[in-house]
């Protein structure tokens, strides 16, 4: 209990030192708090699209992440199953996936704008494309590591392919799938900021970029902290869900 407080305190001291000596444009923790408190104390106020309470922005970002993440796992899970099942499919598509995987959201977004001509679907497209890979890879690994003893039970019982999938393969893969989901959600949250910055959509990333352009640097720090805290909370939440599925 003491050590984390110590760590946070040290960070605040370093932050203050930098703002005083190194980069004087950087607001100190105290100034950040003073200039940001109306966003925190009154987190749900709305005064125009790009001037809202911090939780309101967070909520807009979370909605966008939820949509993109849903799309990512809806595409990624079946793709992972196919890759895990079929060595041929794996041989055919693994190189494609390995090339697509390291592409930055900043590279996908303009492409999304070209395809969809609107910022919102372009943002979702970017989130889904960047966030699905951990789900794809973990699901495929899960399918490949289903124990032969479980599959043999299905064979001896002559279960139909659908029933084998439902009763054996999916439950056996679930722990891997949820590890993938947790990583994918983290990725989606990373991408959201970039997507909002480039499209100027209202949300934490959009707010951050706007305040940079209006030279209110303390609000950048406010956004950064909010992004970090919410990302941390999301990961913890998914961690709990993930543990729930670790049966075996």
């Amino acid at each position, binding site marked *: 209990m003491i050590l984390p407080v110590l760590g946070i305190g040290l960070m605040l001291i370093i932050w203050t030192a930098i703002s005083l000596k190194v980069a004087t444009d950087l607001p100190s923790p105290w100034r950040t708090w003073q200039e940001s408190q109306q966003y925190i104390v009154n987190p749900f106020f709305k005064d125009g699209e790009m001037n809202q309470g911090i939780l309101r922005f967070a909520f807009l970002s979370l909605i966008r992440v939820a949509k993109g993440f849903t799309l990512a796992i809806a595409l990624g899970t079946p793709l992972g199953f196919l890759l895990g099942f079929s060595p041929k499919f794996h041989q055919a598509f693994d190189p494609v996936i390995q090339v697509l995987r390291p592409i930055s959201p900043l590279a996908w977004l303009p492409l999304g704008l070209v395809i969809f001509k609107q910022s919102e679907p372009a943002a979702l497209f970017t989130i889904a494309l960047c966030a699905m890979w951990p789900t794809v890879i973990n699901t495929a690994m899960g399918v490949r590591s289903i124990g032969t*003893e*479980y599959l*043999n*039970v299905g*064979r*001896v*019982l*002559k*279960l139909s392919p659908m029933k084998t999938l439902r*009763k*054996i393969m999916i*439950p*056996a893969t*679930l722990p891997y799938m949820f590890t993938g989901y947790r990583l994918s959600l983290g990725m989606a949250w990373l991408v959201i900021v970039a997507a909002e910055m480039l499209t100027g959509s209202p949300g934490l990333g959009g707010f951050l970029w706007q305040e940079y352009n209006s030279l209110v640097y303390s609000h950048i720090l406010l956004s950064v902290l909010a992004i970090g805290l919410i990302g941390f909370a999301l990961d913890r939440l998914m961690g709990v869900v993930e543990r729930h599925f670790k*049966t*075996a």
Partner: protein
Amino acid sequence: MAILELTGVSKSFSRNVGAKSQTGKIEVLRDINLSIRENEFVCVVGRSGSGKTTLISLIAGLIEPDAGAIVLEGKPIEGPGPDRGVIFQNYSLLPWLSVFENVYLAVDAVAPNLSDREKRRRTESYINLVNLGAAMKKVPRELSGGMRQRVAVARGLAMDPKVLLLDEPFSALDALTRGTLQEELARIWTETRKTVVMITNDIDEAILLADTIYTLTPAPAATLGPAIIVDAVHPRARMQLSGLSSRQKARRETLSNLTSGMAAKVADTAAVFH
């Protein structure tokens, strides 16, 4: 009248990993001939690594023989199926299903057209047969090894197989639990009179349960020794058996079959203790 018949069954596995990275084939079973009557309890005794599990996998249809035929009720077997219900050494219960659901899966697989109520009734009766009525809703992780193997026995019986295959079902259990489960299996078998092929490395277990015992010679290229008949009424109790002369005869024969070849030294040591 044989219900299950194996003629000239051989099986080799290719091996390409090993200390000397030898490649080539290793012959596990050679020319296995086995004929099993309906309602007969057959035990195949062999030491570890002698191809026992390979033999049961062949009968189950999980793997295919290189040569020879496996015929069930006059028809060559084609792949695995619930008519040859298997009780695996490692239980192989599905950890995400409860005791009830694990057994229900088997009932549902062999009798899909029954009403849900009847399927539930059957499931419960199999679970009660192995004395696990109180653990119906538990998941395998909450059960001891002995209880898990009981569930596996219930599931095997729930397949209502023509031949029940048991692959060293009690070898992973402690001696006390093993003894209880052996006697329980003896009781259940006397009630159901299923045709059973059981693989084991425990001679006493074989003598307690089996009508006929075959020994498997040591690998590689293991084959079956002559049939040894255990002529005693079922169900047998452990205590009762120790005085039986047919038991002693069966034990001596089993041991002497096992002692042939390289196993001689080990079995001699074993004989001193018995």
